[in-house]
């Protein structure tokens, strides 16, 4: 229930002059956006975005009581803003430009308000304050949704990078090689085991060569991760050979008391491959 007849008047104005306001807003928005952005979003989609947002805002403002944008009345508007924001974020459009949606709408509404209520400075003032508050909160919601969408994208990209950085190579029938590259932390370790085990199953390999030439540091933690990987592979029936331990690494590992135990290690990949063939020869193929 509107508590404020002024509000009702504003709502009526918005409804009554909606076409004009929408047009003014669209024009203002287009003048502010980068040409590239317009191209990326597309004319048709931009029109749809502005119309949907405007309709929702009209409903919100005519049914609402206040500046409190957290009220259910505004939920729909916020939701639409979030969708616009996410849509833009996924297309690489900057958050500033997305915020322009809200700001340009405010500008347009402002000029119409001035027209309608120019003769009543007190009322106009009250409405301007209210409009500013609403617009600020909308802009914040936009920014928040944008950040969230970007974070999701980054997270997905990280996942892809993780997967790409643990490639397996089918060296020969029944021989798999996995070159480990880069730092092996807990998250990657998990990814490595998963990838390796799945590859062993997919290729029905008897031997997996883990090449650690590309791993900069092998400390106790990394060694533990390696051991887990090796044990897991063995439980699937594959033998594991570790290759690529450098003289420096060997020194460090012994000093740290790291014992790879019964794990077969070979100095170079070449020797490792030869060993792999030997193992295959022994096993019935």
């Amino acid at each position, binding site marked *: 229930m509107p508590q404020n007849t002024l509000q009702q008047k504003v709502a009526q104005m918005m409804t009554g002059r909606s076409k004009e306001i929408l047009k003014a807003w669209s024009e203002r928005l287009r003048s502010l956006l980068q040409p590239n952005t317009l191209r990326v979003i597309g004319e048709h989609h931009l029109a749809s975005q502005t119309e949907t947002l405007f309709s929702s805002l009209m409903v919100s403002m005519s049914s609402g009581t206040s500046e409190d944008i957290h009220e259910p009345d505004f939920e729909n508007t916020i939701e639409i803003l979030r969708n616009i924001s996410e849509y833009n974020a996924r297309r690489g459009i900057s958050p500033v430009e997305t915020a322009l949606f809200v700001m340009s709408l405010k500008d347009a509404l402002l000029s119409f308000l001035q027209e309608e209520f120019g003769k009543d400075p007190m009322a106009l003032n009250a409405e301007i304050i209210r409009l500013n508050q609403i617009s600020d909160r909308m802009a914040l919601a936009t920014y928040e949704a944008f950040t969230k969408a970007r974070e999701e994208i980054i997270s997905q990209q990280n996942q892809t990078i993780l997967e790409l950085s643990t490639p397996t190579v089918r060296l020969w029938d029944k021989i798999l090689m996995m070159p480990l590259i880069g730092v092996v932390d807990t998250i990657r370790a998990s990814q490595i*085991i998963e990838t390796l*085990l*799945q590859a*062993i*199953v997919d290729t029905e390999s008897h031997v997996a060569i883990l090449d650690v030439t590309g791993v900069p540091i092998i400390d106790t933690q990394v060694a533990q991760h390696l051991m*887990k990987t090796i044990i897991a*592979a063995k*439980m*699937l*029936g594959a033998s594991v050979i570790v290759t690529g331990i450098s003289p420096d690494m060997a020194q460090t590992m012994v000093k740290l008391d790291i014992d790879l135990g019964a794990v077969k290690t070979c100095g170079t990949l070449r020797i490792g491959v030869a060993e792999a063939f030997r193992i295959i020869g022994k096993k019935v193929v």
Partner: protein
Amino acid sequence: MKIPIMKLKGILLTSIPEELTDEDAITFQGDLLHQVNRYEARGVVLDISSLQIVDSFMARVINETANMVGLLGAEIILCGMNPSVAMTLVEMGRELINVKTALNVEQGFEIILALIQDEDMKGVS
């Protein structure tokens, strides 16, 4: 639940079903050992590919079963462990120790056969 155990060329072949109560698992262990003894089996091929969830109890049963079969003088090989199960066991610290493994029953069978032939050639009965 009665788990079927098949006999092929002196080798016992059996498969652990997906969901086994603790009781069933122990019963199975006893049955298997009994059969190994009864048929003087040279080898056991144990297919665990149906097991989607292996907790510490099941892991212990499997480990023990392997040791017990070994004590009866037969070779045993575990086949088809699920990659997720392998990862979980390793993360829990409950990995299988000193048990032969193979990717699947086919490979497992060939390995056991080869082992038995080796033994025969060396004159170990």
